[in-house]
């Protein structure tokens, strides 16, 4: 699907960023004052910003940040949330209630607000932003995993394993987890898009990536006051955010289309 291609494109760009950027030092943040506010041209396809830095280079280098954010935040959230959900769903009873109440508490906070509060405690910065976002995201995976575990623990192969004396831990690892993974994957890919948007929003407010990082949300924030006169400054980084978010969403959507009919057949069998 188109989504995979676009993501691959961004991934390649991110990996080879320093070589692809026409002005790599400016991309990293070195200012070039005589060049400030140049409109888009053949020398600077996206124009230059308020410090004269080539925006195309900044956007290219920024892809590294965005992809890192997407992967780290969601993988961390899945690592925290999935085991909790599996345990809750499989064991049931008091542990289930406890874990689900904690999940409810986290989910009752408006997520951006929770992330901002955590950042206010931890201090601004990209790493802290990623940690805060993971901490707001894990409950979703706990819920998905728990629902899956509750369904799957009734399966005959699980009962058979229990009768044979297989430990709960092993059952969780080898029987429940692999079969429950597909909704987590679908949700995860689409959440990567939301994670990028959320992190861009945090940087926009000033609590995420800090100058001179070429993070896209930060660039839109700095360029915001120039929108009327030098529109290219906030417009292109924002376009990049949009493009990569669309890519992850297309991918997740396509993934769901592929996995859904399979699950359906699985349940009917």
């Amino acid at each position: 699907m188109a989504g995979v291609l676009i993501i691959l494109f961004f991934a390649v760009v991110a990996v080879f960023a320093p070589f692809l950027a026409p002005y790599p030092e400016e991309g990293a943040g070195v200012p070039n004052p005589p060049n400030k506010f140049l409109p888009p041209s053949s020398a600077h396809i996206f124009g230059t910003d308020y410090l004269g830095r080539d925006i195309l280079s900044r956007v290219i280098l920024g892809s590294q940040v965005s992809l890192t954010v997407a992967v780290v935040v969601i993988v961390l959230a899945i690592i925290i949330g999935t085991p909790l959900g599996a345990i809750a769903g499989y064991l049931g009873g008091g542990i289930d209630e406890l874990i689900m109440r904690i999940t409810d508490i986290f989910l009752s906070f408006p997520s951006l607000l929770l992330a901002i509060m955590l950042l206010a405690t931890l201090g601004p910065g990209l790493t802290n932003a990623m940690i805060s976002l993971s901490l707001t995201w894990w409950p979703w995976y706990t819920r998905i995993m728990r629902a899956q575990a509750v369904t799957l623990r009734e399966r005959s192969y699980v009962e058979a394993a229990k009768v044979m004396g297989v430990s709960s831990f092993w059952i969780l690892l080898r029987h429940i987890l692999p079969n429950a993974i597909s909704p987590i994957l679908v949700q995860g890919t689409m959440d990567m898009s939301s994670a990028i948007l959320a992190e861009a929003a945090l940087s926009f407010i000033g609590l995420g990536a800090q100058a001179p990082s070429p993070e896209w949300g930060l660039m839109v924030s700095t360029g915001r006051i120039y929108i009327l006169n030098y529109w290219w400054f906030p417009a292109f980084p924002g376009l990049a955010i949009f493009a990569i978010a669309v890519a992850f969403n297309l991918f997740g959507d396509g993934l769901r289309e592929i996995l859904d009919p399979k699950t359906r057949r699985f349940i009917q069998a």
Partner: protein
Amino acid sequence: MPTGLERYIARRLALAIIVLLAVVTFTFIIARVVPSDPAELYVGPKATAAQRERARIELGLDKPLYSQFVSYLAGLLSGNWGISLRAHTSVLGDILTYLPATLEIIVLANIIAVVIGIPLGVYSAVKKGSWLDQAGRLWAIAGVSIPSFWFALLLQLFFFGRLHILPLEGRLSPGVSLYYPIDPITGFYTIDSLLEGNIVGFVDTLRHLILPAIALATYPVGLITRMTRSMMIEVLRETYIRFAKANGISERLIIFRYALKNAIVPTLTVLGLSFAYSITGAVLIEIIFGWPGLGTYTLNAIIEADYPAILGVTILGAMFYIFINLGLDILQSYMDPRVRLS
């Protein structure tokens, strides 16, 4: 004898209250962990040490933490949500002043989202596989992927910068607020201006309201379109629909009477969620449009570590979330008996 529904409601209500209590506790702890001195913020940087000490006692900071917490809880229930450290005004009063401004944007944005999203979702589902469907799906994906702050900037550039037909920021033009002032009866300028027959004010309010609302609506539009579409597809596949078709009932009747009714509840769920999401999305929109709403209030409170204000807003937000979810759960259990029995 309490019915199944009543028992369900009671259970969920009790749960909601427990969760709310936990949220308040959690927030209280986090707010006090932030490394800043509330007394210092209260008296300002030029105060003497003696004044700071007096402030500390006045604010009750010398008492142990749990006792502070208990008095805070008591205050909450009796309507005293604390005093803003920065402005020395009542937190609850501040929140109620700024809330209508934010709600105006949120409500308009969600109305736009529903008016665009539901028909689009329905047509997309009915014409599944056609180019209309593809366009609808792309539209929905675009909606949830657009960074709202970026889109807001583009709207400003286009409608103010280039076309000059809409204002840049704020709730009212300076001229209008001078010559056709709106009396803040409810705080909702749209309602207040109509109540007084202030047509100029009303039109001006709408002109200022439209761009922020559109910017905030992008995510809900995408969400609602996608949700309505997938729900309609599910329902249209059901046997009773095929039976109705086989019996010759018109397609239009099928769509609107049978299919839509069953797809409505999940869509309402999504609407509730998107409403709750809008509360956080509003922060960014308010920054860009210089909107004097709860979003900017919250952001400033957090940056200045004004913890009574932070607590107040968080509790309000959590209350919204929890009770919207509770309402949706009850609605769903009312319409679908299978839910209460589980």
